[in-house]
């Protein structure tokens, strides 16, 4: 037998291997073949309805307004008037606080929620038996710097709350049922998933685009992605955020309100001392009252009017018969 010829046996082996490889390639192609061409725009995914964290309403205990300059005592009183924290937080609850931590500015300029207020609310939650209190926000400035410079990080450490710095994998693409703007949009979802109570905390600030930034505007901090595009229709996005999330309780801190250069401020001269703390189950009502502190009526704020029309709350806060008190410092 010459070297340039293979044996019959080798020839068959080679044919078998070739045949099997060919067949495998064909089978694989058949399995992977996609007969439907890919869609250019993806279908809406993760359609969600409102995330409801609210508790049962109690007649006559929907909103309280407490005057005084000490945030810790006014917030304690304001919550007490609504029935105390135990009305909202049951033992074993996991609570998420959503303050405004938007800017890496010190607390004295009041562009962000005050650390003492956060500390006190956390304490109240723990006193009511909360298992764990979390704090989160997706700030505008660098997240870590924001939590540090606003001193909310150190306040949280003191009172045992855990800060959740937003990470890429905390966001989930969400489509809100009935919404026009929140469509396949990244929402800071992970921190909301593991809690059963949510408390919104915000200040009262001048805001050129939306006129005033208060509790409802504060939920902007749950949006991810290039959320700046929503400023083109800011009233609608604020209302849609209110549709998305129904908080357990909201705290509006109007101890000092930012009357100019909002929402960043940056100087104490942008602030006005109004010594008021509002606790409410109705964020539309709380914001409507907050607007008055800036010299505005609820009709001046289109998002309040829209929210009322959709039944998200009432702009006529007087109809809720606010419980009032004064705390001397």
């Amino acid at each position, binding site marked *: 037998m010459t070297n340039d010829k293979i044996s019959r046996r080798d020839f068959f082996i080679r044919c078998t291997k070739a045949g099997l490889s060919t067949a495998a390639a064909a089978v694989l192609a058949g399995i992977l073949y996609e007969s439907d061409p890919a869609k250019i725009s993806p279908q809406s995914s993760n359609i969600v309805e409102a995330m409801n964290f609210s508790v049962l309403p109690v007649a006559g205990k929907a909103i309280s307004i407490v005057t005084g300059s000490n945030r810790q005592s006014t917030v304690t009183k304001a919550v007490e008037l609504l029935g105390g924290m135990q009305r909202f937080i049951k033992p074993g609850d996991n609570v998420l606080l959503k303050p405004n931590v938007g800017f890496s500015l010190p607390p004295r*300029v009041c562009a962000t929620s005050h650390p003492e207020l956060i500390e006190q609310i956390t304490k109240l939650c723990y006193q009511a038996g909360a298992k764990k209190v979390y704090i989160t926000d997706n700030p505008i*400035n660098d997240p870590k710097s924001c939590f540090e410079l606003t001193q909310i990080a150190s306040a949280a450490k003191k009172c045992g709350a855990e800060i959740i710095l937003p990470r890429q994998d905390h966001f989930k693409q969400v489509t809100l049922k009935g919404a026009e703007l929140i469509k396949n949009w990244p929402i800071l979802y992970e921190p909301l998933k593991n809690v059963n109570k949510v408390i919104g905390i915000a200040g009262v600030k001048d805001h050129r685009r939306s006129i005033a930034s208060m509790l409802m505007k504060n939920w902007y901090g749950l949006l991810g992605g290039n959320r700046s595009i929503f400023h083109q229709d800011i009233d609608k996005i604020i209302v849609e955020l209110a549709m998305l999330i129904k908080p357990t309780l909201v705290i509006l801190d109007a101890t000092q309100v930012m009357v100019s*250069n909002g929402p960043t401020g940056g100087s104490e001269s*942008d602030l006005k001392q109004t010594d008021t703390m509002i606790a409410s189950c109705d964020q539309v009502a709380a914001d409507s009252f907050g607007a008055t502190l800036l010299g505005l009526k609820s009709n001046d704020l289109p998002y309040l009017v829209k929210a009322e029309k959709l039944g998200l709350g009432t702009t006529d806060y007087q109809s809720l018969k606010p419980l009032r008190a004064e705390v001397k410092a």
Partner: protein
Amino acid sequence: MKITTARRISQVFFFALFIWLCAVTTVGEKFWQLRGWPVNFFLNLDPLNVIATILSTHKLYAPLLWSLITIILTILFGRFFCGLVCPFGALHQLVSHLAHGKNNSGLIALHKYSKAQSIKYYILFVILIMAVLGRYSSLQSGLLDPIPLFTRTINLLILPIIGDSAKILTSGRFYQISLLTLSVFLIFVLLNFYKPRFFCIFICPLGALFGIINRFSILRINRNLSTCTDCKLCNSHCQGSCEPAETLKLSECVLCFNCLDDCKFDAIDYNTADSQTSQVAPDLSRRGILAAAFTGLLALPAFRLSGISTRDNNLVRPPGAIPEKEFIKRCLKCGQCMKLCPTNVIQPAGLESGLENLWTPVMNNRVGTSGCQLDCVACGYICPTSAIKPLTLAEKLGKGDFSGNGPVKIGTAYVDRSKCLTWAFGTPCLVCQENCPVSPKAIFAKPALVLAKQDSQPQIDTELLQPYVDAKLCIGCGICQHECPVGSKGAIIVTPDGQSRENRLYL
């Protein structure tokens, strides 16, 4: 313990220390954050930094005095830094070992001395000539000096990759021109397959500097001719390719001590004996030095030509950066400011601004978490040569003692009306105005003037507010540009116009 084991322990220690110090270069108070860690330790030990900055600026920076220790130890003991300390050298040695093995029969040939090893001296001369040219001078040692090179590679490439994969960071760190950073690093690492410690032997300007100053060293590697059997085994793992078996080239010896370990007859020693078998000076020719000098003279304008406009300042530098002409004489291109910056806005400049500016810090507001934060002065405190001056908060914000100076201005923002949503499409937006952090705001809004229909009188649309920049108030922090919803560079763009560091009329 074998002396080579001690050398390996030293290399591992300094390599680990180097990586650790890079890793902790991040703002914070935890033990794995900045705190008091001497994060510029290796940069300060590097005598090329100090010599080149003295030549370019005629000044000596106090922290760089640490390099005096390196210089004195080198004069006394030889190139200990290369063999025992240099983390980049340690990496090359490891890769070379992995690439060639320990018992390869070709090792003696592989470690043969080559005349081309003189190239690194010429590279050093080119760098020093560029630094010495008075008011035209430019500090380019950082391009090839292993300590800045390895520092920026770890800072801008390796740690971000590790951090991102391990999700240690809240948001990933991004650095532009990473492909270039990677290419330079990878090429030098892979060249070890061609020749062990290729970078150290042929390229390293720092090694060349040590090769020049170790000529009077007291302790040297010596071969005892009476006990030597001329087996040439000592050449087989020589990391400097200095051929201890022939005429040992002292300037090339990196003190790896492999020859001591390889010699079976104790003929090699590290001692004060008379070095009759050594060549002390590097192989340099007068022609070569002249060629290097001319290359240096030509290289500088050539570096500059490609980025000529940058001499007129088109780069937006971090706050506290000194005037451009001085800046380029000081910046080591080490990337420490970029690693430290909490918002990741400080980025390495690419080739678009000329080779001269490659890897120097520039602001890219569209990268990172949020422009330049108002209450942050971190970058100036880490810069090893004060190319970015350490500012106090009062000085940066123009408060207190500095209220007469006004805030430090990085640049000025411009509204690009052809892209701004309010101007181009007539849709309301004002994100830039909202986020302007100065008080009173440098971005203000006015109602739009619109033509209801052709030939009609312009009317004021109070519903549509359009942004304007007050150039006097704008500090160029770039937060507006970061937040602008318009894609690409955004519709509000920070330029270096009006920057404090040039102190001249811009607009």
